[in-house]
């Protein structure tokens, strides 16, 4: 059952990056859209993610519940030392989630829309940034469980160049995912071209920030290069991701949408795999060189057993419904 639970945890995190990420990305794209096109972007986006956006965010909750039930030590270490970035991310989630709904359900459309839009765009950006910062901090080895003063315990644990680089990398990836997703959602040629250009822009940004992450890791003594290039899985993942990049650009120029989406999702999955495979099952790296591993902190057997059972049961109930939801609203136009 341990493996089932860990598989669900990984799946939850992955899907949150992909689906939730595309959702943040939509706000980021809107932020980087010229004023005259914004309302068009907004419309396409609403049609695209309106029906499913609530479900996207469930993955975060699933992941967090698995962590606190099954791996309480990891959950509490995170929440003690990364208190501040978690808090900022949460404020971002609250702000964008409510602003998204308010702007569509406000019965009167007036100046308030201006406010909702502002909040939605900026908080999407912040949420993605801090999601990345948190992910980076977990593996950066800056979390210091022996720290004596406030700043080194609660600030430097996440305020370091590596985490910030990962943060911006995440922002670019989210924007990229959203742009690719939106291409397929519009019938309008003009909008299509716009989203393609956005996707190209975000993809270049992602490559640049990705390079930056490696660079900073080098300065920061984080063996990222070793992790990625010194084992077959990491290496092949990164090679596959790079190869698919070429194919992706070809398809982007052609404007082929269906394959493009799968490819974009595949790429992000590969990147996550490359980064995390080498130190799996270690979840958090500490400053003193220790690591907190999933297997060593796993909860008591009965808990894991019933958690795994609940997850399996849940997915049997949920997956058909979720599939049907996506299916139903994919073919809405016809």
């Amino acid at each position: 059952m341990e493996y089932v639970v860990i598989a669900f945890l990984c799946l939850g995190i992955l899907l949150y990056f992909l689906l939730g990420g595309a959702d943040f990305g939509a706000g980021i794209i809107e932020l980087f859209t010229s004023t005259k096109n914004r309302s068009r972007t907004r419309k396409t986006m609403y049609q695209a993610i309106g029906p499913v956006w609530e479900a996207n965010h469930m993955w975060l909750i699933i992941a967090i519940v698995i962590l606190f039930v099954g791996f309480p030590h990891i959950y509490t270490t995170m929440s003690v030392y990364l208190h501040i970035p978690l808090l900022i991310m949460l404020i971002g989630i609250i702000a964008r989630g409510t602003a998204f709904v308010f702007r569509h359900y406000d019965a009167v459309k007036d100046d308030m829309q201006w406010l909702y839009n502002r909040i939605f765009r900026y908080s999407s950006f912040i949420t993605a940034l801090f999601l990345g910062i948190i992910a980076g901090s977990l593996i950066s080895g800056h979390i210091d469980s022996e720290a004596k003063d406030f700043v080194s315990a609660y600030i430097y644990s996440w305020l370091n160049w590596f985490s910030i680089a990962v943060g911006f990398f995440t922002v670019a990836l989210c924007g990229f995912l959203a742009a690719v997703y939106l291409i397929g959602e519009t019938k309008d040629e003009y909008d299509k071209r716009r989203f393609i250009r956005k996707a190209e822009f975000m993809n270049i940004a992602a490559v640049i920030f990705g390079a930056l992450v490696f660079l900073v890791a080098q300065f920061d003594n984080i063996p990222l290069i070793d992790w990625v290039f010194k084992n077959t899985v990491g290496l092949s993942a990164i090679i596959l991701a790079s190869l698919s990049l070429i194919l992706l650009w070809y398809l982007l120029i052609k404007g082929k949408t269906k394959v493009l989406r799968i490819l974009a999702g595949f790429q992000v999955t590969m990147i996550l795999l490359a980064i995390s495979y080498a130190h799996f099952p270690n979840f958090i790296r500490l400053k003193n060189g220790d690591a907190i591993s999933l297997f060593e902190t796993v909860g008591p057997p009965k808990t894991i057993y019933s958690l795994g059972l609940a997850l399996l049961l849940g997915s049997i109930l949920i997956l058909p419904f979720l599939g049907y939801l996506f299916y139903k609203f994919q073919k809405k136009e016809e």
Partner: protein
Amino acid sequence: MDDFLAARSQMALSLGFHIIFSCIGMVMPFFMAVSHYKWLKTNDEVYKNLTKAWSKGVAIFFATGAVSGTMLSFELGLLWPKFMEHAGPIFGMPFSLEGTAFFIEAIALGFFLYGWNKLNKWFHWFTGMVVGVSGLASGILVVAANAWMNSPAGFDFVNGQYLNIDPIQAMFNKAWFSQALHMCLAAFTATGFAVAGVHALMILRNQNKEFHLKAFKIAAVFACISALLQPLSGDISAKDVAKRQPAKLAAMEALYQTEKPAALLIGGIVNEKDKTVKGAIKIPGALSFLAHGNFKAEVKGLDQIPENEHPPVAITHYAFQIMVGIGTLLALISLIYFINLFRKKPLLEKRWLLKLFVLAIPLGYLALEAGWVVTEVGRQPWIIYGIMRTKDAVTPMPGIAYSFYIFSAIYLSLSCIVTFLLYRQIKMVPVLYDKTVIKSK
């Protein structure tokens, strides 16, 4: 503000905020389903518009409920890491099942909101019901987790170690049933009276009378039935508390001295320093009866409980008085309403009755919050009753006061925006949902 107090206040604030939205998420789908059903059966457009109008409101609340809930699942760790480290694996079962229930709810809501004219109409109705049932299920599950904190079960506590953990047994602890029952009824009572009251107000203002009357009737029936059952279930809870948590019961009743038979206090001003209560009405023997079902029984007072295990008495006592007072009032209103229905008097002539309902708009929620204060403050100083103290669970990070201020500001502004949006929804009823009736003064 010291960090410990700030952490407690932040937790209380977030939960107090979340509960309002989650109750609406649990109850409104049922109102919608009834109205939807009537539309499918009678083809009366008013019901269709009513369902749509309500569902817009629910979408607003659902989003706010979902984000505040997400916030909570992190906050448990952010504020109480030492509690979660031990409690997570034990009381996590309901949370993992709740995850499933939420997921189903979110998916079903997607179908329901976007499914008009796209789905088979009965399947569409069914998705609305699924939203309600899974919302209710998740409410029951989280309350079971809270009940575990009041009545820990499913593990052996040996030398500070938590051994032989059994999450199923933890979920079905001694308090879960009475708390879950009382909570579900409370959700229906509070939301029902709030919704009925708002529509009653619109009827009194002579706006879109037919629309609002139909809405009022649906909400009022739910509200009144549950308000009548509420005191009964409260009595079950009280007997339960007397058995499980004598300190909480003593604090609820401000019973400083053990009495046999014990008198029930109504109202009164508590002086925590002198351990006295002034100006309360005393009903001899009533407390013995309420707590143990026997007018002669002994009820444990705070004198039998070590000083360092006393909960804050004044807050618990006042909150209990508020809940019971409102509960009695709402039950009376419900009784009057049913008598009127029985005598087939047209409602529209009974303006005073409608006014009573308007008065009751905030009362249900007030009672609900007060009830939670009784449960949570009455559990202090324990976070896990008898096992772990709240002050040992709090996060080591200093400066929680600032996060408390930030969250107070966020919740305050969110409440303002939501109220404002709702006000607009209602104001727009004549334009969006019910064009037939022109406002007649």
